[in-house]
């Protein structure tokens, strides 16, 4: 039962997205602009790029993630879909899990499309580190979407929701940002894994703690 609800929520979100292509296209376009703005505002040479690129990557990913997360529940406002979700007899945790999975997929898809652009624009050398980078993206994106989905649901029914989501979410995901930037920097520099392994562990701990907590607290948010 639980698994079916998760599947259906994910399926529903993917199908809507496939039909409208609203979220993915706006996320991609926004991220592309962020990349260009950054390269203009720092006028980067090769050396500066080495220093700054990990930070730029994660700022771009986090802000595009905000767009995706904000849309995740505000899309449900049309046609009172949210009230049906609230009123449905399905376990609220299953809805949460489905939403997390869908948001995670959107964000990861955008990241996988964007990362080659970073590689091209900033002349990065990533061939040997690609699997590690993917692991970092996976962990950090999961952390962002686990907390982000909770706060997307929390801010959707209040005034000024577009502003409140980043204001509430960004201070809370500071550990994810720090860990992701440091680990990405380590991987891009080709450092040996033990030098930045602690950041991966931190990401894993964050993910476990906040998936459990958000899963439990989601009940109280989607409560008619």
């Amino acid at each position: 039962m639980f698994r079916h609800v998760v599947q259906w929520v994910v399926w529903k979100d993917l199908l809507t997205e496939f039909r409208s292509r609203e979220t993915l296209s706006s996320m991609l376009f926004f991220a592309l602009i962020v990349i260009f703005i950054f390269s203009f505002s720092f006028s980067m040479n090769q050396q500066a790029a080495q220093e700054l690129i990990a930070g730029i990557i994660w700022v771009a990913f986090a802000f595009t993630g905000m767009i995706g997360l904000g849309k995740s529940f505000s899309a449900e406002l049309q046609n009172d879909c949210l009230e049906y979700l609230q009123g449905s007899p399905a376990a609220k945790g299953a809805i949460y899990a489905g939403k997390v999975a869908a948001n995670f997929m959107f964000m990861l898809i955008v990241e996988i499309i964007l990362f080659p652009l970073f590689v091209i624009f900033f002349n990065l050398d990533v061939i040997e580190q690609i699997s590690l980078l993917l692991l970092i993206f996976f962990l950090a994106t999961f952390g962002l979407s686990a907390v982000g989905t909770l706060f997307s649901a929390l801010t959707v029914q209040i005034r000024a929701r577009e502003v409140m989501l980043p204001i509430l979410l960004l201070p809370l995901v500071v550990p994810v940002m720090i860990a992701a930037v440091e680990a990405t920097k380590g991987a891009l520099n080709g450092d040996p894994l033990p030098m930045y392994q602690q950041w991966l562990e931190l990401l894993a701990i964050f993910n476990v703690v906040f998936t459990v907590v958000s899963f439990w607290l989601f009940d109280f948010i989607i409560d008619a």
Partner: protein
Amino acid sequence: MISKVVRRLRRFQGWFGGLAAGCLVAGLYLGLLASPPDYYQGEVARIMYIHVPLAHTALLAYTVVFAGSLWYLWKRDPLIDNVCHAAAGLSALFTALALVTGMIWAKPTWNTWWTWDARLTSFALLFFILLGYLMLRTFIDHPEREARYAAVLAIVGFLDLPIIHFSVEWWRTLHQPQSISLRGVSISSGLLIPLVIMSIGMSLLFAYMLILRTQLLYLSRLLETKRGRLLSQFHFSKADP
């Protein structure tokens, strides 16, 4: 009309206020006049007696918010929600004051107003989380939903704090040159006694302020509902005939 708990709080609040004032005066006397200056930092170390209690109390206040939020989600008692709301506002106040006194202390000892020290940075983030909490509460019109959402935010933020602290600490050891030594003040017993008394006094002052602010929030809501009732009586009576 006014709940029994609130009336009892009102009766006993004076004790907290009086004890807090007594402890603070005694602590200030011991800290500023009677205790010797610190070996390394001299007179400037006396800022410790105000800064550390403020920081402790800010964390104590946030712990109250956290415990109260759990309790609210369990029992759904509006008075507990008032306690949480009051404690969050006070925690934001104490955090801001701890940051300001910390910056004033940092200038003569580290020769800079701000360093990206783990404690300073996580306190600044705590301040942002609390401001977000207070903002969230103003953006929701439905009182019950406001209480529920705020409780969720408070719980997530509280569990996040240690993780934020550790991540910033690791990040700092990577990026800061160790030339600025962030050695804590070596605590001897002569310095410890005023510090403990000030901490107790500040916690009691927080308790007193919490009682006051809880009453404030409770009473203003009560008054609002009362006025709403009067207003609706007025409207109905006009509409009826």
